[in-house]
C-alpha cells in the first residue's frame, strides 16, 4: 500500500494529541480545585501534592494501562480471528486474579516483597495462565486459535471459582480488599512502579507494531498468510507473547479493567480500517486516553458526595452501552 508510512505517522500524531488533551483534562480537573501557579511555584504545597503526587501519577498509570490493554485487544482479535476476543479471553486475567487475590488474602505471609507483592504475584499468575493456555492450545506442536480460546475460557472459569473460594474463606477485610482490586482500579502508585510498567508497555507495543504485517496476513487466514510468505506459527507465538506480557503488566498494576481492550479496538477499526500498522500505535495512544478519561469521570461521577467510583466500574458502565451503539450502527458489516 503506497503512502502507508505517512498515514501511520499522521494517525499516530493525531492519537498522541488525543492522549495529551485527555491527560491535560485529567490534570486540570478533580475533586478539589487546584491553584496551578502555586502548585508549580511550590510543589510541596497542598496544590502541588494534589497535582504531582495524586493526579499526575494516577493519570500516568491510567494512560499506561490503556496503552497496554487496547493493543493487546487488537492483537488477540487478529490472532484468534474473533471479534469477541479481549485481552482476558486467554485466561490472563483469571491467572492474575487468583494470584493477586491470594497475595491480598495471605497478606503478611506473602509480604516479603513489600509494596511489590500484589503486582509481582499478579504478573506471575498471568504468566502461569498463559503458559497453561499455550500448553493446551497447541495441537501437534501448532497453536490452534480455537483450541487456545477454549482453554482460556475454561481457565477463566476455573479461576473465578478459585477467587470465589478465596474470598469466602478469607477474613472479611481481606475479602473486601480483594474484591476492590478485582473491580479494576487506578490507585495511588509509586513512581518506581510507573517506570517498570512503562518499560513493559513500550517493549510490548513496539513488539506488536513489529508484528503488524504478519497480523494483517493472519487476519485473512492461514492460507493467505502462507501465500505472502509469513511463518504463521512463529508469528502467532510472538504476537501471543507480546500481547500477554502487556495484559499481565496492566492487570498486575490496576486489576482487570474491562472493555478497554474491546471497545477501543473496534471503534478504531471502524474509523481507521483493518491495517494493523496503523491500528497498533493508534490503539495504544487512544486506549491510554480512554482509560485516562474513564478514570477522570470515575473520580468526578460522585463529586457531590465526595466519593469516587473505581475505573473498572466506569469502563463497563460507559463501555457496554457505547459498544452496543457501535454494533447497531455498523450492523452486519465485516469486522476484519
Amino acid at each position, binding site marked *: 500500500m503506497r503512502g502507508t508510512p505517512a498515514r501511520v505517522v499522521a494517525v499516530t500524531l493525531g492519537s498522541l494529541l488525543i492522549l495529551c488533551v485527555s491527560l491535560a483534562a485529567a490534570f486540570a480537573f478533580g475533586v478539589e480545585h487546584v491553584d496551578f501557579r502555586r502548585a508549580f511555584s511550590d510543589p510541596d504545597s*497542598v496544590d502541588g501534592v494534589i497535582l504531582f*503526587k495524586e493526579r499526575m501519577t494516577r493519570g500516568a498509570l491510567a494512560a499506561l494501562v490503556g496503552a497496554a490493554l487496547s493493543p493487546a485487544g487488537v492483537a488477540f482479535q487478529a490472532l484468534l480471528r474473533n471479534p469477541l476476543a479481549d485481552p482476558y479471553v486467554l485466561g490472563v486475567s483469571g491467572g492474575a486474579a487468583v494470584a493477586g487475590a491470594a497475595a491480598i488474602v495471605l497478606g503478611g505471609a506473602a509480604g516479603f516483597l513489600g509494596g511489590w507483592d500484589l503486582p509481582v504475584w499478579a504478573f506471575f499468575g498471568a504468566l502461569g495462565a498463559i503458559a497453561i493456555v499455550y500448553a493446551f492450545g497447541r495441537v501437534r506442536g501448532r497453536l490452534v486459535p480455537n483450541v487456545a480460546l477454549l482453554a482460556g475460557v475454561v481457565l477463566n472459569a476455573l479461576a473465578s471459582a478459585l477467587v470465589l473460594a478465596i474470598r469466602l474463606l478469607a477474613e*472479611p*477485610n481481606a475479602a473486601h480488599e480483594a474484591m476492590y482490586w478485582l473491580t479494576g482500579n487506578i490507585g495511588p502508585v509509586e513512581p518506581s512502579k510507573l517506570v517498570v510498567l512503562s518499560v513493559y508497555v513500550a517493549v510490548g507495543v513496539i513488539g506488536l507494531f513489529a508484528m503488524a504485517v504478519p497480523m494483517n496476513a493472519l487476519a485473512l487466514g492461514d492460507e493467505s498468510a502462507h501465500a505472502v510468505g509469513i511463518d504463521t506459527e512463529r508469528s502467532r507465538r510472538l504476537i501471543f507473547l507480546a500481547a500477554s506480557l502487556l495484559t499481565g503488566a496492566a492487570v498486575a498494576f490496576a486489576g482487570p479493567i474491562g472493555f478497554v481492550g474491546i471497545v477501543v479496538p473496534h471503534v478504531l477499526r471502524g474509523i481507521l480500517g483493518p491495517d494493523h500498522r496503523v491500528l497498533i500505535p493508534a490503539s495504544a495512544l487512544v486506549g491510554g486516553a480512554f482509560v485516562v478519561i474513564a478514570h477522570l469521570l470515575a473520580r468526578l461521577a460522585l463529586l457531590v458526595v465526595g466519593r469516587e467510583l473505581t475505573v473498572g466500574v466506569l469502563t463497563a458502565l460507559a463501555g457496554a452501552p457505547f459498544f452496543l451503539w457501535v454494533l447497531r450502527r455498523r450492523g452486519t458489516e465485516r469486522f476484519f
Partner: protein
Amino acid sequence: MRAWSHLAVLSMVCGCARTHAHPPVATHAVRDGLGRVVHVPFDPARLISLAPSSTEILFAIGAGEKVVAVDGYSDYPPEVRARQRIGSDLEPSLERIVALKPEIVFTATSANSEATVNALERLGIAVFVSRSGSLAEIFTDIAGIGDASNREREADALSQKMRAELDLIGARARTRPPVSAVVVVWPEPLTVAGAGSHVHELLQLAGGTNLAADSPQPFPTYSTERLLKRAPEVLIIGTHAQAAPPLATFERLTSIPAVQNHRVHLIDGDLLFRPGPRIIEGARQLEHLLHPELK
C-alpha cells in the same frame, strides 16, 4: 425439645408451613436494636452470639458463662476462645446452632445478614438483633442485651461506668483547643469515619474535630484530594485483625500536617470500630493521640 427442633429442621428442609411450637417456659417481651419485640425466657441459660460486639457486651455484663457458642470473629475477652465456634464466614452453620439448643441468639446488623436472622426465626429460635450506628444506640444495645439475658442491673452498671468514663474524657478534652483529625477505616480505597458513626462521636468527644464530618454516612469512601485539602493535624488509622495497613500510602501525602509532624498513628481497630464496651479504651487512646500533652 429435641423432637421439636427436629421437626423445625424438617419443616425448613421441606419448606412447609412454619412451626409455631408453644415455648416451654414463661417468656417476657424485650425490644431489640431494630425496635422489634422479641419473646425470650425469663432467665435464659443457653445463649449464642454471632457478632463480636454482642459477645463483648454479654461477657462485660456477666452473662459470659451462659454463652455456649460464638461466631468465628468473636475474639474478646480471652475466655471466648474456650467457647464453641459456629462458622467463620457470613453463613453460620444453622444445623450446629439448632443442635446447641440456644434460648436466644444475639446478632448485629454490622456482622450478620437479614437472611440469617430470618432463617433462625423460622426455626423457632428467639433472635435479638443489635443495631449500632451511634453512641446512643450502643447504650440502647447494652440495655436490651441486659434485659434479654436477665442481667439488667449489670447492664445498667456497665452503661453508667462507660458514661462516666466518657464524661471524664470529654471534660478533660474541653480544656484544650480541638485538634483536627481524620480516622481512616481502610487505606485503599480510602475509607474514613463520617458523621453517621459512633467513631465520629468518640473522636469529637476526645478533643478532635472530625474533618470528614461533611459525609453523612458512617464509613464513606473518601477522595484523597479532599483529604489533602482538609489537611488534618492528626491521622488515625485503624488496624484490622492485628494486621498493620501499609503506611506508605499516607507518607507520600507530604503536604498534610499530620504527615509532616509524624502524627500518623495506628490504633487497634477493634477498640474503635467494634460497637461494644471497649470503645472506652478506644476513646482513651484517641484522647492520648490527639492530646499527648495531657496525662
